[in-house]
């Protein structure tokens, strides 16, 4: 209908268009003899060029570059100048033989598991709780999300102040409650779960749980109320309702956030870096990304981009397995559910 209404105006707009064509004749002559379909293609590529160049330079190319660099190394040639050559798996061999390699993986895994325990489970129950409240909704939502907005350096410097073993707030609270005090992030222990890593996870959870909580909250509001009513008629209590309705109904969101959280927490860096310099006492908070950073930038004399790339490739493979596994699992679920619907 709208097309019909605008049709009478079309002849009026035609001269204007022709005028534009004449005015730019010299510049656009070649362009305007092309068929419209081709013109459209050309302009489409002009629109994309900025983004495509940025993706190519800062995403696709570095990806390939990382893999190539992980198989290269610097050797001295006959003139004593360093040249880049292929070294096969030498970089991988070197990083695997580095004793901190396994420590870093162990710590990263420890952080991921603890962060899932706190950062995945806690927000879910917080969201269920918030969903039941009929008052102060907006206030509580803002409250939970506020730390997410803080610059991480602000939040983490504040936590390192709280964690200070001599004048920190947390030890003071423990002291007034007559509980044993702790060294928090500076705890020297290396047996699982280390106090140092727990401290890092507490700070990280405080900073980040808002996002997950609000996504769960949105998912909870999409659960049809009739399901709960039906369950009540069958005599289900709160625990049963959560187990048999809330969790299955939010399964998609839960599993997606689980994967995103695993990928995010496996890349832990800034939390430990600001709280205790990244390594912690006895390397007990040193993560894989911190080790990459150390290989590439921190060892001033022996900075080694090739070893760092090799470690990056290994991390990429591990994370790829996680996300590939996730995609595979959700795909089979789709296939199973399709005949039913």
């Amino acid at each position, binding site marked *: 209908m709208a*097309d019909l209404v*605008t049709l009478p105006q*079309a002849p009026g*707009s035609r001269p204007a*268009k022709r005028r534009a064509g004449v005015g730019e004749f010299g510049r656009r002559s070649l362009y305007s003899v092309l068929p419209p379909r081709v013109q*459209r*293609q050309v*302009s*489409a590529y002009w*629109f*994309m060029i*900025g*983004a*495509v160049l*940025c*993706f190519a*330079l*800062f*995403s*696709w*190319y*570095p990806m390939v*570059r*990382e893999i190539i660099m992980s198989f290269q190394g610097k050797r001295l040639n006959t003139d004593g100048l360093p040249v880049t050559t292929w070294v096969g798996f030498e970089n991988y061999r070197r990083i695997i033989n580095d004793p901190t390699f396994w420590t870093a993986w162990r710590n990263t895994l420890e952080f991921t598991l603890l962060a899932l325990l706190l950062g995945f489970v806690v927000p879910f129950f917080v969201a269920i709780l918030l969903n*039941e*409240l*009929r008052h*102060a909704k907006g206030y509580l939502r*803002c*409250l*939970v999300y*506020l730390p997410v*907005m803080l*610059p*991480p350096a*602000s939040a983490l*410097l*504040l936590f390192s*102040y709280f964690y*200070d073993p*001599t*004048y*920190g707030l947390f030890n003071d609270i423990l002291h007034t409650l007559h509980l044993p005090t702790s060294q928090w992030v500076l705890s020297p222990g290396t047996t699982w779960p280390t106090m140092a890593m727990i401290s890092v996870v507490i700070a990280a959870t*405080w900073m980040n749980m808002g996002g997950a909580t609000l*996504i769960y909250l949105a998912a*909870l509001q999409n659960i049809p*109320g009739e399901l709960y*009513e039906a369950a009540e008629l069958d005599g289900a209590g709160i625990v049963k309702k959560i187990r048999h309705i809330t969790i299955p109904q939010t399964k998609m*969101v839960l599993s997606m*956030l689980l994967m995103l959280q695993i990928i995010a927490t496996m*890349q832990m*860096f*800034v939390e430990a870096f600001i709280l205790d310099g990244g390594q912690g006492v006895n390397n007990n908070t040193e993560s894989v*990304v911190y080790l*990459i*950073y150390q290989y590439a930038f921190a060892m001033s004399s022996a900075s080694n*981009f090739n070893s760092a790339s090799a470690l*990056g490739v290994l*991390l990429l493979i591990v*994370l790829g397995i996680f996300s590939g596994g996730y995609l595979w699992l959700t795909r089979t679920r789709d296939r199973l559910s399709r005949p039913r619907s």
Partner: protein
Amino acid sequence: MADSYARSLISATQLNRARGKIVYRIVLTAVIVIFTLIFIGPMYFLFTDGLKSTQEAIATPPTLFPHALHPSSYSTAWTEFSLGRLLLNTLYYAFGALAFQLVFDVAAAYALSKLRPALGNVILAMMVATLMIPAMVLIVPLYITVSSLPFVHINLIGSPAAIWLPSVANGFNIFLLKRFFDSIPRELTEAATIDGASPMRVLRSIIIPISRPILAVVSIFALVAVWKDFLWPLLVLGGYNPPRETLNVGIWEAAQTAPQNMVLAASAIAAVPTIIFFLIFQRNILAGLTAGGIRG
């Protein structure tokens, strides 16, 4: 969406019973008090400990209220760490990145959605596939690339472009924008094309005015991402280049040597703009979170 009463885990009848009402009141009060303590409590110390003297800030036991107010630590921190400079830097990087992302990503998503170039699907798939690559994994080759761009050999280290340009390569932006543009009816853009509008005119006069909500979401994500980033600005602008650092990196560097009350004062100042930003845009931010979080 429809705000008619949607029931949740516990039914309204249960809540309306006398016992239900009491329990609900107790739980509500407890939740409000505990959540305020957990989430605002630390921020209370962030702001008040900046007002303490250096001795009091590291006194055992810590004091709940400053004995004597020392607002001077705020002003000293402001001048000592040149926080004004850092704040301006961060704003400059954040809004620059926003401008680049809006121009390049909107144009690309528009072309992919409405102009349908040959190989468009391949390009789209390659862009969205970068979502699967964790950012930290590429930090080393990205640093090397930025320090010497291939073919042209330009070094971007220390220039704002080192933050702006890589931020354009954001698969999530392309995904969100393209999905939104796809939902704009084809008849609308085709009618304009028949009336003689160029692709640019269609983008300016039809697509962008309709897409305000998604542009708001993308803009907020872009600003917050630059504001919160730490390692990348530390590598490309920090360390050796203090007048160009971001706020985040600057206060971390200050914390290495400065006394505790100054560090907290600086952290508090750094937190204020984000808190104000959040309070102004909280509706959009919280809505954008679920728009981006739940796909399909």
